[in-house]
């Protein structure tokens, strides 16, 4: 078949890797096209690792990492990054927690100093803990409790799909658990998970490899060696019968639904995982995609449809077990049952008839654009390479992704669609409690 297809371009960012004697892994990816650098430190601990009775702790701890460290008063971190013209943040994921800055490149050494200082030891005080518990509660109110569809589906679907605490619990945490967190809990968490052997540092952008290597050694070389903890196996068996739950959202004016199916292990079975990443786009990327055409334009049973891998929406930074998700918002009075039946029908049709001519190639071309746009930002590159190093020891995979996606075949996408059976599906639907 010779459907006209665009050449899929790739990047060639270098990925210089080394490991310090204390176990810290480092990735440098120079690019001198703009005088800025991205710095990312990723710790191999996330929501799945937090202890029972301490829901939300990984995220709360992320906040505490900004509250001062060995040589830095509270507020100093923020002031030093921003006073150098930079921006910063951190985020907590299922399988990792990241801390990052984007700065003018003359501030690189400052950023390394700041990151090394808190890797040696954050200031874990009662006052800071209470303050940040309050801040996190406001974060949960603004993102979950005070708005319609808060936490849908990322907090609502896992407990339907999974049975074990690590995979099923609320990663933002209950107010009760957050309020009962102690400084001793935080110290334990730091000791166990924030070891330099459990971290990756990645720097991208306007840097010289030799100079940056020397700076990394100067600032991180004497962080005391501590090995990574053994990561537990979070595996759970696949579903054998459909699971479906619903809840009333008192603020939501219209119904919504999200469904998920387990997918192959993203790390150990990447070749079989990738077709699902492509499938999600074939189904939902734009007006030419299958489910938008059918559900939104033809049947008008949905007003929006989305599809993606991983509960937090990034297919390349999550470990097993994970899922392909589809979510839809419905018009007033819309039927979730009918919508799910139509999704099944479209998946069956795809599995039986395969893709149309050109459908796969154009989806792959659009996916390449999305990937390249992400890597255009120095921080996008640093973060992605840090996680790829941590989870796969292969940061250079970032350059390979457009090509690897381009190599997924129509048969593989079709086979992936065939596995998304109703009996393997977990769904959560939002009953509109706020309809006027």
């Amino acid at each position, binding site marked *: 078949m010779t459907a006209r297809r*665009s050449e899929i*371009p790739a990047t060639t960012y270098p990925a210089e890797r080394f490991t310090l004697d204390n176990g810290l892994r480092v990735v440098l990816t120079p690019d001198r096209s*703009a*005088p800025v650098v991205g710095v990312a430190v990723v710790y191999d601990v996330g929501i799945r690792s937090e202890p029972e009775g301490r829901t939300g702790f990984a995220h709360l701890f992320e906040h505490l990492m900004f509250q001062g460290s*060995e*040589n830095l008063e509270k*507020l100093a971190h*923020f*002031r030093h990054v*921003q*006073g*150098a*013209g*930079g*921006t910063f943040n951190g985020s907590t994921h299922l399988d990792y927690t990241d801390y990052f800055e*984007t700065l*003018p490149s*003359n*501030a*690189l*050494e*400052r950023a390394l*100093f700041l990151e090394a*200082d808190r890797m040696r030891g954050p200031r874990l005080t009662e006052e800071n803990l209470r*303050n940040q*518990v*309050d*801040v996190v509660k*406001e*974060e949960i*109110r*603004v993102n979950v*409790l*005070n*708005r319609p569809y808060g936490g849908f589906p990322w907090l609502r679907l896992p407990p339907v799909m999974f049975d074990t605490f690590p995979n099923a619990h609320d990663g933002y945490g209950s107010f009760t658990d957050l309020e009962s967190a102690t400084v001793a809990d935080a110290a334990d968490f730091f000791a166990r998970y924030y070891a330099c052997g459990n971290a990756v540092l990645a720097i991208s952008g306007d840097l010289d490899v030799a100079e940056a290597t020397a700076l990394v050694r100067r600032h991180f070389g004497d962080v005391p060696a501590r090995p990574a903890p053994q990561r537990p196996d979070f595996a759970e068996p696949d579903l054998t019968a459909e699971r479906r739950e619903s809840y009333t959202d008192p603020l*939501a*004016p*219209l119904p919504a639904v999200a469904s998920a199916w387990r997918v192959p292990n993203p790390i150990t079975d990447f070749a079989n995982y990738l077709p699902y990443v492509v499938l999600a786009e074939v189904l939902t*990327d*734009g007006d*030419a995609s299958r489910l938008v*055409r059918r559900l939104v*334009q033809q049947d*008008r049973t949905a*007003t*929006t449809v989305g599809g993606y891998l991983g509960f937090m929406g990034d297919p390349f930074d999550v470990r097993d077990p994970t899922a392909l998700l589809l979510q839809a*918002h419905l*018009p007033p009075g819309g039927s979730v049952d009918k919508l799910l039946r139509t999704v099944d029908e479209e998946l069956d049709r795809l599995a039986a008839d395969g893709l149309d001519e*050109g459908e796969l190639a*154009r989806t792959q*071309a*659009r996916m*390449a*654009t999305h990937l390249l*746009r992400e*890597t*255009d*930002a*120095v921080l996008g590159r640093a973060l992605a390479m840090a996680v790829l190093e941590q989870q796969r020891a292969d940061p250079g995979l970032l350059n390979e992704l457009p090509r690897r996606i381009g190599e997924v075949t129509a048969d593989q996408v079709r086979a992936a669609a065939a596995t998304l059976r109703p009996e393997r599906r977990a769904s959560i639907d939002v009953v509109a409690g*706020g309809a006027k």
Partner: protein
Amino acid sequence: MTVRTLPALGPTRRLTLPDQAERTFDNGLTAIAVHRPAVPLVEVRLWVPFGGAHLARGALLAQTLLSGTGELSNVGIAAALQTVGGGLGAGVDPDRLMISGNGLVTGLDRILDLLASVLGGATYPADEVATERDRLIDRIQVAGSQPAHLARVALLKRMYGGHPYAVQTPDAAEVRVVEPDDLRGLHADRVQPAGAILVLVGDAEPERALDAAERALGGWSGAAEPVELPPAPPLEPGPVLVVDRPGSVQSSLRMALPAVPRTHPDHAALQLANLLFGGYFSSRWVENIREDKGYTYGPHSLIDHSVAGSALVVSAEVATEVTAPALLETQYELGRLAVLPPGEDELEQARQYALGTLQLGISTQAGLAALTSAYAGSGLRLPFLAEYADRLAGVTREDVAAAAARYLAPAGAVTVILGDAERIGDPVAALAPVRREAAPS
């Protein structure tokens, strides 16, 4: 414990601007191309002046602009764009219709051709218009359940009174009666090349990108009557408007303060005054109400520039029980900056942030495209960035104090709080006169 000291910053790199070129075509369209070849992509922004356009029709036009041409259906357009890694979308605000997108640079000609076919021949098919009309109505309903949206609606109305900026979201009922012919009529009147500005940023040599743009869009024809909005009225301070949202677990605190356009001599000093107050994380207000008191998660203030006026907008979502205390601290920090000059160190810190984020903002194709387009919409070009950096570098403590006194004084604020009026009304009334209102529906 080894005492370590903060490393000094390396030498500052001067702001260097990427290569660019500009051309105005015979039909009145201006095109600006900027070179940033780091990834083999191109960003596209088309700003079409849209001030005074009918609100409901404008919103639906943006939703259906890409729904069909004489040759292609909506799926056909979307598929053709996807084939070159491209995508386009449209949106409106009171000043402009904005068509934005991106794609593989090898697809630039194709993307521009598709853009041209839509601009010159969008058909607004009845079926697609009906679908998008229902979707827009649903979206308006969902927006109406979101506190941030409701607070914005109330604030805009309070700020702008009878000016077209006062209402920026149409009613569902107004959308329901829009017909395809209305959209065709609005398109014929207003989607025109005269005064429009196309921005292309990416891995294409600027003159060549302009050639491609001229080939594709030089034949886009028609002439729009220029529509100019009256200047936005000055803010009129008054009682705190408490908008009732029963059962809220948080209150949405909003304030509007006066501001000036980017070209105004006070702008650089005002920008720094805003940073010192609440415009970045290391500001007095954020350190106070978040890092000291834990009242809120993401408070921020920013200067919002529209064609007919600028305003400084202060926003925080705070726990219901600390609504009045949060307002007190906000007024305190505004007042403190308005009546006392800032310290040298904190000014320097804010200045470095302002200068550094200019560098960061232009370090990606998407950032450059957003900035170039926003500047062009106010009649500015990228070299203004260098001029602005020089102005920031020259601002003194006295300049900031004067700007803060003029623009940040709490007495000049328009304040709106959306929340549970039963619980917040009386405590807020202890600080300022209050007027209550039901939530907009």
